[in-house]
């Protein structure tokens, strides 16, 4: 049964919360697992979503990102699964890089495309739909965090997730190859709404490289709200790469939360290339002493793309360290947003936090809204932030031209270098090289996929 389009939907019983859009997407909860714990947590998340609604630009955290175009889209819960272009998936990682793999087609786990043989005994991965026993407990915990949180997107995803994955690493388990999550989406009319949810629990001393790739097939519109929920246990090491290359009409509202325990290390690299309206939201909370987090982001926009990068680093414990560098390159009428907040909670003494964002505007019509924020409630801390935006340095361009390099090529080389600095920060050289090449192709004007 098709879901009524927004225009046909009944008025909300209690009216939207202050600052909510006058539009409520009502999905259709798909049963996951069937464990009563999940069912109840889901109901709480649903209530939370109803309460929060979808944010309008009157909500401070969404000031620069307008979801009106989502409200105008005729939506239906994703049902039909796309036929998946395997060759394109093969190009998402460097050929020589062996990886475990899970593929989601419009949010649904595709067991026929998974590569999970030879996982170490201490690593269990199951589809969200099949969550039972311990896995169900992990899922309900994740749903409860969404139900108690402030993110509409996380609450909505928790209420409507159709599938996803639960990844559980036992203490001391280290994966010697990255785990690659491939989200393939394809638009139809009405546009499918896709809400995959991945929950990772990395127990004490475990280690993993997690790569999420988001790709779109075809030109059609769809809406996806991928949530990646991460629990990084004491002394654990998690490297988390997000490569966003959605289709040209896609609305991608991604949300990730990492809770980082004692002496744990969380490293994130974002490469954002595709999509029409994109939000890459990341919240990293240092919950116990000695944790460290590094966030690196490279975002690209052209045409009328809108790409919002919102990060929240919360220092909730003493002696933690955070480093963040986000860089963007925007051309044509593209619009970028960087909202980066560092919160140092009372008692989080000897916090060491640094944040930097820089954007290169390649055209006069491109725009960036950069909002760095420091909120410090402790007195013995070392925190700094910086933000710059502007055209490419003409001295750089001249230096290259004075060596025979044409102006277009010079700009390409410089922007690739500018973003490449961030990309090189990921601890895997083969992967960095691969993403640098991807950025170079974008700069060369080469369209991919579709």
């Amino acid at each position, binding site marked *: 049964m098709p879901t009524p389009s927004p225009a046909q939907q009944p008025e909300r019983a209690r009216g939207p919360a202050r600052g909510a859009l006058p539009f409520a997407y009502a999905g259709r909860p798909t049963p996951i697992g069937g464990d009563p714990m999940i069912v109840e947590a889901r109901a709480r998340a649903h209530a939370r979503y109803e309460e929060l609604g979808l944010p309008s630009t009157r909500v401070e955290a969404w000031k620069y990102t307008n979801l009106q175009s989502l409200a105008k889209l005729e939506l239906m819960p994703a049902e039909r699964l796309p036929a998946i272009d395997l060759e394109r998936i093969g190009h998402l990682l460097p050929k020589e890089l062996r990886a475990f793999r899970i593929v989601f087609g419009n949010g649904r786990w595709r067991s026929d495309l998974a590569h999970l043989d030879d996982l170490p005994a201490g690593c269990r991965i199951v589809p969200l739909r099949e969550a039972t026993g311990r896995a169900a407990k992990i899922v309900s915990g994740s749903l409860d965090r969404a139900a108690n949180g402030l993110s509409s997107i996380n609450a909505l995803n928790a209420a409507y997730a159709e599938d996803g994955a639960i990844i559980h690493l036992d203490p001391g388990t280290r994966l010697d190859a990255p785990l690659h999550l491939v989200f393939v989406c394809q638009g139809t009319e009405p546009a499918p709404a896709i809400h995959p949810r991945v929950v990772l629990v990395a127990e004490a001393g475990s280690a993993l490289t997690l790569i999420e790739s988001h790709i779109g097939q075809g030109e059609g519109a769809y809406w996806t709200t991928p949530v990646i929920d991460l629990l990084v246990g004491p002394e654990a090491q998690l490297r988390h790469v997000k490569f966003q290359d959605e289709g040209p009409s896609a609305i991608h509202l991604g949300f990730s939360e990492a809770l980082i325990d004692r002496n744990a290390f969380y490293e994130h690299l974002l490469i954002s290339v595709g999509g029409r309206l994109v939000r890459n939201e990341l919240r990293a909370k240092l919950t116990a002493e000695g944790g460290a987090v590094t966030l690196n982001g490279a975002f690209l926009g052209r045409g009328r793309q809108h790409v919002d990068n919102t990060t929240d680093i919360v220092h909730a414990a003493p002696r933690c360290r955070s480093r963040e560098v986000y860089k963007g390159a925007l051309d044509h009428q593209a619009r970028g947003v960087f909202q980066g907040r560092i919160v140092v909670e009372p008692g989080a003494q000897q916090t060491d936090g640094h944040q930097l964002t820089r954007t290169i505007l390649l055209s006069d019509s491109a725009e960036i809204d950069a909002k760095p924020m420091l909120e410090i409630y402790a007195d013995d801390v070392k925190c700094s932030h910086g933000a710059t935006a502007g055209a490419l340095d003409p001295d750089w361009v001249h230096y290259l031209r004075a060596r025979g390099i*044409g102006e277009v090529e010079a700009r390409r*080389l410089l922007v690739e*270098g500018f973003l490449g600095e961030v990309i090189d920060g990921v601890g895997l050289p083969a992967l960095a090289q691969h993403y640098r090449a991807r950025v170079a192709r974008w700069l060369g004007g080469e369209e991919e996929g579709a």
Partner: protein
Amino acid sequence: MAAPLLEITNLHATVEGKSILNGLSLSIALGEVHAVMGPNGSGKSTLAHVLAGREGYQVTEGSVLYQGRDLLSMSPEERARDGVFLAFQYPVEIPGVNTATFLRTAVNAVRKHQGLSEYDAMQFLKLVRDAAERLGMPAEMLKRAVNVGFSGGEKKRHEILQMALLAPKLAILDETDSGLDIDALRQVSDGINGLRGADRGMLVITHYQRLLDYVRPDRVHVLSKGRIVRSGGPELAIELEERGYADTVASAAA
């Protein structure tokens, strides 16, 4: 007789509305090394930038012919591809751009223009390593970002390395000696001398005579207030060093 390599006639140029060059004339033939000396503010660096085609330098009068062609109508990259090279006084640091990649892109752009085949990464790496070694540059520098974290001496060596790789017809060296200690000065000078030849002309711009002890010029010109006020042989450089600019310029005016 063939056209001179470089023929500057009555060149006037302004920067931000301020006139810096006021009727400069100079002619360099293939195989010659000319030195232009002058006090600070005399227009030495402006001359270098005008010849390299930097934005913001307005030529208001006069002409510059390079191998008989109007140099001023060419873009900076066209000049470089046709064999004009400027060793910058202050080479800019370019974060994120790998030095070896930058050098290969530049060399291949020039080779392509000359109808030569482009080097692949492996071929080029060998070539550039050998050239760097001759200049006493550690190969490790090639892996770093262009000029980032290079010492003053390393930046100047890097300029000479680029000159060696691009093999220009006309090399303009803008205060290449500044900021060099005596060992670096010798190494850089050896690099420059190694590139002297019948098929190349050089314009060496310097404030001090000491570089000219190593790189012996055929002609020396004294620049003052945007014009050449005296020209002579290498002995003129020694006179300048002994008497200073003020006296030399004053005696020229007298």
